[in-house]
């Protein structure tokens, strides 16, 4: 059975990492569905018990890499989406607001309840997609996006690193709780790639994009290889 790892731009590191690994006879490959920004919009639909991509970019890439415009039930799908929490913590709102648990005096405190609501809104269409796959009998699991980076540009624009770490931790906990509730496995980032504060260690960060610009938030091939090792191990077991 073919295992497809697909999702947002963080699949690039996974693809690079996979190229360094032995696949242990597993038929597995990685491809991008498209930009993570589309995860905030409806991107999937179920037609006659078949789950299709509705976002044009996702649909195009799904066909390009798998030959079909639907998520085939005879494959296993590893979804690299749902923990791209930069969508939340990079917003300039957090320069003037902080999670209440760590808020400094005078800064607007945001309760865990409100933060959960923000996270659920961010993950809404991803959860909807996973439920479609489950209801359509399509096997899937979720592959983590990398932890936040300490050199993310939002940190230079007034967002505190503590805020970024707190939001990322809450968002991950929220998704993982939901996945457990729905019996969907989650492949977490390897512990050795993370600092004690929950950030990606510098040696696992991508440095430059293909065009030579500074890459502000992706992980590199080494991270991808470590995570894909976990993915292969998970798929070999199940």
């Amino acid at each position: 059975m073919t295992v497809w790892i697909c999702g947002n731009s963080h699949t690039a590191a996974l693809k690079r990492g996979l190229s360094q690994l032995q696949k242990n006879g597993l038929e597995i490959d990685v491809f991008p569905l498209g930009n993570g920004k589309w995860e905030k919009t409806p991107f999937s639909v179920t037609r006659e018990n078949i789950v299709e991509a509705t976002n044009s970019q996702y649909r195009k890439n799904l066909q390009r890499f798998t030959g079909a415009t639907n998520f085939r039930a005879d494959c296993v799908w590893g979804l690299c989406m749902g923990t791209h929490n930069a969508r939340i913590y990079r917003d300039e709102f957090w320069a003037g607001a902080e999670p209440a648990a760590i808020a400094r005096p005078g800064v607007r405190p945001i309760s865990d309840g409100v933060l959960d609501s923000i996270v659920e809104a961010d993950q809404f269409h991803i959860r909807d997609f996973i439920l479609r796959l489950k209801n359509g009998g399509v096997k899937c699991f979720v592959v983590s996006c990398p932890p936040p980076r300490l050199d993310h540009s939002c940190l230079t624009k007034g967002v505190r690193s503590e805020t970024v770490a707190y939001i990322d931790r809450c968002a991950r906990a929220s998704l993982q709780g939901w996945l457990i509730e729905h019996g969907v496995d989650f492949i977490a980032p390897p512990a050795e790639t993370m600092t004690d504060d929950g950030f990606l260690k510098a040696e696992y960060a991508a440095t430059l994009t293909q065009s030579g610009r500074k890459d502000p938030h992706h992980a590199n091939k080494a991270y991808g290889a470590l995570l894909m090792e976990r993915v292969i191990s998970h798929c070999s077991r199940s």
Partner: protein
Amino acid sequence: MSHPYTSLPPNAYWRSGVSDVSPLEFTAIYKPRFAVSESMSIAAAGSCFAQHIGRHFKLRKYNFIDLEPPPPLMSPQSYEKFGFNLYSARYGNVYFIRQLLQLFWRANGIFSPSEDIWHSNGRFFDPFRPSIEPTGFASAEELLRDREYHLNAVRSLLSQTDLFVFTFGLTEAWVCRSDGAVLPTCPGTVAGRFDEGRHGFHNFSYNEILQDAETFIAFALQHNPTMKFLVTVSPVPLTATASGMHVLPASVYSKSVLRAVCGELYAKYPQLDYFPSYELVASHPMRAMFFEPNLRSVSPVGVEHVMNVFFSAHQSIAAETPLQEMPAAERKRVPKRKKLARKKRKAKARAGGSGNVICDEEILEVFGR
């Protein structure tokens, strides 16, 4: 022979003002005492019906103050659940004028209620806005930080307000026996635990409400001596009464007291206007057509009608007021009639949705027994 009733306008006679005309077309049922312009900074508080007023001021692009706006990343569907986007700060429904007064006293350090935090099943609730976090705060510290920020926002509200809109809701309240702190909901309904030794029923009298309203006006004028006031009475009847009376006469009593207070305030304060939202929905010529089948909730059509009466009246006086009679700064801000009409059309289209009014009383109705 001439007498005072010979030369009155048609709307002064019941036949020509009410019985011979459609209730949708009462002429001059509301004649604004002063213009509410789009440049005025408007703040609002009140019972759940007041949510409609704030929403419509925003929809129609008036300068409505919101000192605690929703985080931009939040889904608009969750705004109301968390008390965002309803009033000028995140204080939830303010049913009583004394509750309003105490809110500003608390914000200004004049009053510190002994009822501090409600704790239930590992969650923490603010007794003075128990439904602001639907499942409560995660910790007492979180609640206190949020409350401090909230009260700071409230403290700054009056000094930036040109028009304060208050919708009187109820007279029947639950108060803390130790210090008279007025609670928006009976402990044990939305959150908290009812304790007869600590919590008492109080049905505010005409004199008490009038005195509280006058105290609030005086307090507000200290912050902005040119502030104007707009008062209304919510047409929504009581969900339940603890007075011992049948709920219908109890409701009529409450609304009558509140309406009478508004009349007295209108007579005494030239800077205060009364808008008859109660009459436009709940008076008998309206034949209860703007109520939902439960004869309590106001239908979206009813809300729309009330708001259209209000804004049409204000747009008419804005259009009628000669520009030379307005101060120069104000003149610049007056939109042209065409622009006004366009805005009105857009606002009407946008306001199409019913909007879910969060009413703590609804919870009482379901869980009250």
